């Protein structure tokens, strides 16, 4: 197990875990745990550096990977945050923004599930239309927003009643709705490496800050990790805006973090690491 010290940005966290994994002979870390104290927007130059390895191979870009967790293009955030004393028209504005996101994605879900690799659904599809195969499934995300707003209305500054279930038909059908979270993973799934790699998302509120932990059972550090971090950050900020809790910490637990040495080689990974290090150093100097 390797627990990294807290990082202050997505890029620093990605760089930290990538460096540590690349430094091992086979490029793998067992039980890597990392947290980002202030997850914010991605750095375009770092996105470009990651994409430069993915695009020539015809692989999904950082933006596309991020869209699997939270399709940012479908959400136009209103210029206000939830508060218990908002006027009905203001709450309607917030709800309309969220409903646009949900409905646009749910409507596209049949098409999205038709693409190669999406046969078993998509992450966001499972969040807004469980179990993620049709447009009329259970909307976990909407329900969690409602729950957290209810806590906020009652002045609760701490709660841990909301996690997201990303797979697990049995769980979601048998459990009481209040007890389940955002489900991604099915309990009788015996596959060792396939969708979904993201198996669980848990939300906690402490000190009026909403924090999120995501568990990956196999985290591909070049193909997916940075895009995953971007998508999870957007999910966290969406939930924060819609519930009125301040955005808190983003934590990742990767049961195996894989630098993909077999695909990219130590040499190529070292070049990528050097590029990101230079970029972060430049950013620091600007600040």
């Amino acid at each position, binding site marked *: 197990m390797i627990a990294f010290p807290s990082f202050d940005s997505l890029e620093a966290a990605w760089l930290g875990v990538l460096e540590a994994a690349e430094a091992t002979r086979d490029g793998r870390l067992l039980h890597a745990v990392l947290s980002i104290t202030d997850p*914010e*927007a*991605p750095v*375009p130059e770092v*996105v470009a550096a990651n994409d430069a390895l993915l695009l020539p191979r*015809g692989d999904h870009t950082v*933006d*596309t990977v*991020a*869209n699997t967790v939270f*399709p*940012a*293009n*479908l*959400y*136009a*955030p*209103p*210029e206000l*945050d939830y508060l218990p004393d908002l006027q009905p028209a203001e709450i*309607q*504005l917030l709800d*309309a*923004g969220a*409903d*646009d*996101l*949900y*409905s*646009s994605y*749910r*409507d*596209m879900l*049949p*098409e*999205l599930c*038709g*693409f190669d690799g999406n046969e078993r659904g998509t992450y966001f599809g499972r969040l807004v239309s469980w179990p993620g195969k049709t*447009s009329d499934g259970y909307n976990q995300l909407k329900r969690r927003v409602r729950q957290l707003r209810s806590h906020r209305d009652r002045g609760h500054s701490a709660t841990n009643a909301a996690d997201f279930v990303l797979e697990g038909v049995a769980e979601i059908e048998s459990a009481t709705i209040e007890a389940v979270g955002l489900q991604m993973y099915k309990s009788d799934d015996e596959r060792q490496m396939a969708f979904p790699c993201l198996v669980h998302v848990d939300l906690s509120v402490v000190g009026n800050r909403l924090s999120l932990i995501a568990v990956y059972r196999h985290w591909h550090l070049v193909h997916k990790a940075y895009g995953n971090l971007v998508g999870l*950050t*957007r999910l966290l*900020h969406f939930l924060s*805006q819609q519930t009125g809790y301040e955005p808190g910490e983003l934590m990742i637990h990767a049961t195996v973090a894989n630098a993909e040495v077999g695909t990219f080689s130590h040499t190529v990974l070292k070049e990528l690491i050097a590029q990101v290090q230079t970029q972060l150093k430049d950013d620091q100097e600007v600040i």
Partner: protein
Amino acid sequence: MTEADAAERLARRVALFGTASGRHRAVQPIPRHQLDATAPNSPDELAIAAAVRAADRTVLQSGSVAQVERQVLAILAASTQRTIAELETGELSRDGSLAIDSMNAVFVCRIVARRLGPRGWTRLRGNCDPQDFVSVRSVARLITRLRRRVVAA
């Protein structure tokens, strides 16, 4: 929260969700939270109603690539409550038409599939590749490839 705090939060949110956070973000396939009195009541219908109404079925069925390209723009413009001219100020793709991201492209295909119906449209699965989802023109070409002529009874 002070005004300065609110302004900073807004700026951070724009960076995370808005035009600064990635490519092709000038086009968002959703209405701007303006409830439409003529749209169906179900919230699930609100986001797509305007786009469906903007799509000309006849052009989609038999128009040229250039004509269908205008339809793609019209769908995106209607769904974002912007004008086509506004959209056309966005980033261009290699083919010279407006660049869009894959999610927007799938959104357009979904609207076209609705307008043409299952008999007039070949499903995407197995009939497309990632390069079909990069620009207004590539989507228009995809539509002309996947549409089916329906002979009236």
